């Protein structure tokens, strides 16, 4: 051993050994790396899990590139966050003078119930409980989600579609673990034009054809960024009619 150390010729031999080991390791690692990169850029939790179901709703309600009223990746992400805040507020932040039934159409602390509503009075189009009581989404919703996933997982690198899908899924997962990751931009609203309002948003609708959720809902104007990701958000009158 000592002789070997002392012999200068032993150094190249060691280098060759090291090189051989390095090459062998690379040869082993390359297929593993290839496997890693062939993983999809985006994947959602199962539709029968709460986090997968919530993610589907958040994703289904917003505009992706190419869709009507798409503005930017940031605006679409903000819309998902605000939709989650609406659902949360419909459970935990019912304003004085209102009941949860009036605001959310249900009485429940379960966010899935708030999404599905009851019977024919579904709150979110395409999301409901089937006759066995399981929360499900319409085939159209699943078809659109599959389509978006297919686009997101195309090509050699992740793009806006995968960024948006992953954002929605992470938002949903985090909600069930820790709560909402992000601020409610409508929390401190006090007045929309001449109307005193409660703050927070309690409904959203596709921003087309002048939809309005009715009752005491007040459209949040563009001055307060009431339109996000192809949706219009609504707060409530401070003094119910």
């Amino acid at each position: 051993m000592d002789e070997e150390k002392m012999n200068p010729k032993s150094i190249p031999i060691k280098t060759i050994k090291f090189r051989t080991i390095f090459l062998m390791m690379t040869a082993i690692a390359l297929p593993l790396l290839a496997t890693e990169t062939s993983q999809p850029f985006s994947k959602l939790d199962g539709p029968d899990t709460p986090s997968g179901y919530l993610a589907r709703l958040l994703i289904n309600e917003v505009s992706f590139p190419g869709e009507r009223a798409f503005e930017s990746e940031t605006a679409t992400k903000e819309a998902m966050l605000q939709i989650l805040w609406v659902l949360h507020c419909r459970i935990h932040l019912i304003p004085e003078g209102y009941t949860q039934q009036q605001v959310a159409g249900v009485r429940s602390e379960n966010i899935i119930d708030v999404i599905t509503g009851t019977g024919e009075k579904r709150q979110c189009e395409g999301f409901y409980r089937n006759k066995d009581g399981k929360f499900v989404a319409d085939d159209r919703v699943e078809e659109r989600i599959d389509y978006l996933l297919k686009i997101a997982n195309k090509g050699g690198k992740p793009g806006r579609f995968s960024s948006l899908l992953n954002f929605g899924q992470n938002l949903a997962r985090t909600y069930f673990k820790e709560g909402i990751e992000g601020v409610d931009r409508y929390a401190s609203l006090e007045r929309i034009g001449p109307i005193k309002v409660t703050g927070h948003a309690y409904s959203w609708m596709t921003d087309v054809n002048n939809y309005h959720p009715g009752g005491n809902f007040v459209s949040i104007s563009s001055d307060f960024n009431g339109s996000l990701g192809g949706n219009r958000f609504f707060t409530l009158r401070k003094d119910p009619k």
Partner: protein
Amino acid sequence: MKLYRANRLVLIIITVSLLSSCRMAPPADQAEISTVPSELVQQPYLYEVIRHLYRWYLDEAEVERIIGSKEFSFWVRRLEPRLDPGDHSLLAEILLPQLNISVKVKKADYTIEEMKVVVKNSEFKIIQITRGTVPAHCPRTCQQVAINVGDMKDYLFRTRNQQDFPDEVMIERLRQALRKEIAKEGISVSGLPQGDRIIHLAPLSPIANETWVFWEDGRKLFFFASDIDLANPAVWEHETMMARVFDLDQQVVVSPSEAPGSNRFLTRYQVSRALFNCVVLGRRVTLPSPAAPDIGDN
């Protein structure tokens, strides 16, 4: 001493040049006004905006209110939201104070890398219409345009039945898209006999990338909308992303208050309007059953 004088001279020159540049720069508001794209303040475009509203939104009382004025005002401003890198789209807002309606328009210009699709509109398209959010006074960032109400009224009357339909190539794309959509819906429509399907296409607006279609025997309304021009073949390759369906037996209420907060329903008034435009002003088209030969439009 010389150095001091030289410095003083340089300071004076800088001060003078800064002052003169301050005087030359326009006020911030004026700078913003100047960025309003000229096509948005031209009468032909504003006429199209009001014709779109007249056909799809305005009711009797609102038309009465317009006719009662001598001039009709438009307040137009450029919007500059933070867009994604490489997105050169232009956005603007047209406020109609006499109707308390705001119309957001967009001239898209971006690429969807994943789909290899270029989204580029040749003109500004309506992407949003909102009621009740116009301020009492014209914002300083807006350019004001006034149009003679008499001329505008004549134009609306003259064009009230104008039917602009897509060309044959686009109708064929629409047919194919509808076949797919109807096939999906067919599963949920019970008791529907096999055979041809009758649909009614609403006239198109030249300044909106959207169209409504009534499926007569399925009793459903389809709403197709996109950021991409409907004349662009790419839009019909991705029809999954642009179609919404309303079941007229399930999703119609008289007032949204019947199901507060729900985003599922159209009002009977909205549906009436869509049906008038599809059935009365629209074009009836037969979709032959897949096995039968295509017999074309009626």
